[in-house]
């Protein structure tokens, strides 16, 4: 397993550079929008990646509620963190594209609002994890993740009632896309997914190590005789 990590890292690096070339050079310039359309190759793959990560978070949370496995909790934490980052990328690149094309930075349209609400829910999820006292964090976070997932369809229907301004989804929406553009998009998505997996993986290992250290420290504090705690500790006021 450990050997797979550098392989994935190299693969991600190669894919990201290839995807960059595809998006900026190979893909044809869009007729009406011009070069600003190229942000599409970052905006859409980030959105897909973020949604996949939130999906994984939901299932990991359910798994934690059922089996109380620590691994499931770490997966949930990691995917939420990385998902929020990708979701932020979506929310930042969207307005950059929308300003020249729509003439406005932001509109309360279906997909925009849904993404924003999703982002808000997961930020509150991370805040909860940050603020709750350690022992109960995984359980409370898992419960909140379930609530957030239940909320998504309701948000969808509530905003669907307003008219939507966002361009229809290009894949499966009946829109026509130049095959070279589609290629660049899918390559970028693959690269971003690999990148997300890589970040999640290293964050996962970090979290495992952090919990090990916490556990060891707690154990040491229990085992150490009381007298040594009152003495000068090596990291304390020595010298």
């Amino acid at each position: 397993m450990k050997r797979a990590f550098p392989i994935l890292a190299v693969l991600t690096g190669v894919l990201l550079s290839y995807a960059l070339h595809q998006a900026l050079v190979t893909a044809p310039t869009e007729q009406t929008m011009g070069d600003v359309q190229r942000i599409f190759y970052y905006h859409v793959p980030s959105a897909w990646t973020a949604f996949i990560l939130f999906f994984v978070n939901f299932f990991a949370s359910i798994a934690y509620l059922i089996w109380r496995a620590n691994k499931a909790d770490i997966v949930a934490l990691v995917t939420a963190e990385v998902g929020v980052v990708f979701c932020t990328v979506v929310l930042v690149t969207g307005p950059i594209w929308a300003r020249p094309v729509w003439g406005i930075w932001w509109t309360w349209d279906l997909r925009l609002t849904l993404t924003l609400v999703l982002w808000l829910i997961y930020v509150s999820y991370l805040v909860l994890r940050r603020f709750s006292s350690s022992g109960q964090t995984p359980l409370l976070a898992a419960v909140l993740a379930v609530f957030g997932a239940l909320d998504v369809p309701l948000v969808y229907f509530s905003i669907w009632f307003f008219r939507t301004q966002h361009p229809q989804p290009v894949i499966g929406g009946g829109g026509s896309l130049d095959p070279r553009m589609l290629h660049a998009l899918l390559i970028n998505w693959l690269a971003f997914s690999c990148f997300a997996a890589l970040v999640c993986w290293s964050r996962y290992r970090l979290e495992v190590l952090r919990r090990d250290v916490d556990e060891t420290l707690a154990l040491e504090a229990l085992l150490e005789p009381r007298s040594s705690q009152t003495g000068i500790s090596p990291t304390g006021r020595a010298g």
Partner: protein
Amino acid sequence: MSTVASLTRATLAKDLRLEWRSKDAINSMLFFSLLVVVIFSFSFDPTAEESRQIAGGLVWVAFLFAAVVALNQTWAREMRNQVLDAYRVSPAPPNALFLAKVIGNFIFVTVLQALMTPLFIVFYNLRALGPAYQLPIVAALGTWALVVNGTFFAAMSLRTRSREIMLPLLLFPISIPALLAMVEATGAILTGEFSARFWIVLLAAYDVVFTIASLFLFAFVLQAE
């Protein structure tokens, strides 16, 4: 089933009696929403026509903030003398406690709304141009949506540091569809320009989904140690 019903009734009666004698929650909610009304009317200074457009938002923002004040006090009472711990070790079903708290908060917020509505009408010159009989339905469904999630998240934030801050941070993002529905439905009824039916159905769906979810998950939150 009967144990759930009788436990719910007992806890609810206790909470109502406590509230009746202290009037802590209702007084702080009333004063708070009064302040919100006054500050809003200073900052917008609306005419009757405008106020009809924005009143839905104003009313519900005021009630939302006021409800948070009450919700934060819900469980604080049970923390004193370790009542909640005692409840946890007792064989009583957790949902009975939860339901009692939700119904209690529902009653408090409804009383607040009944007292505040005349003030809103006076300050903002409101008159419903649409079907006014729908307003109580929207109020009841909306209040239930706020308190069922609010009570649940208040119980969750008991287990966190700085719990008073935590509750709105958890409650507001999840409540966005419900808030949107309340505000839009109220606006629709006040202006009479379009039907509020879709929003009422959405609110009802929200209530059903989150009531069931809370009843399923409350045991986890109560037992969290």
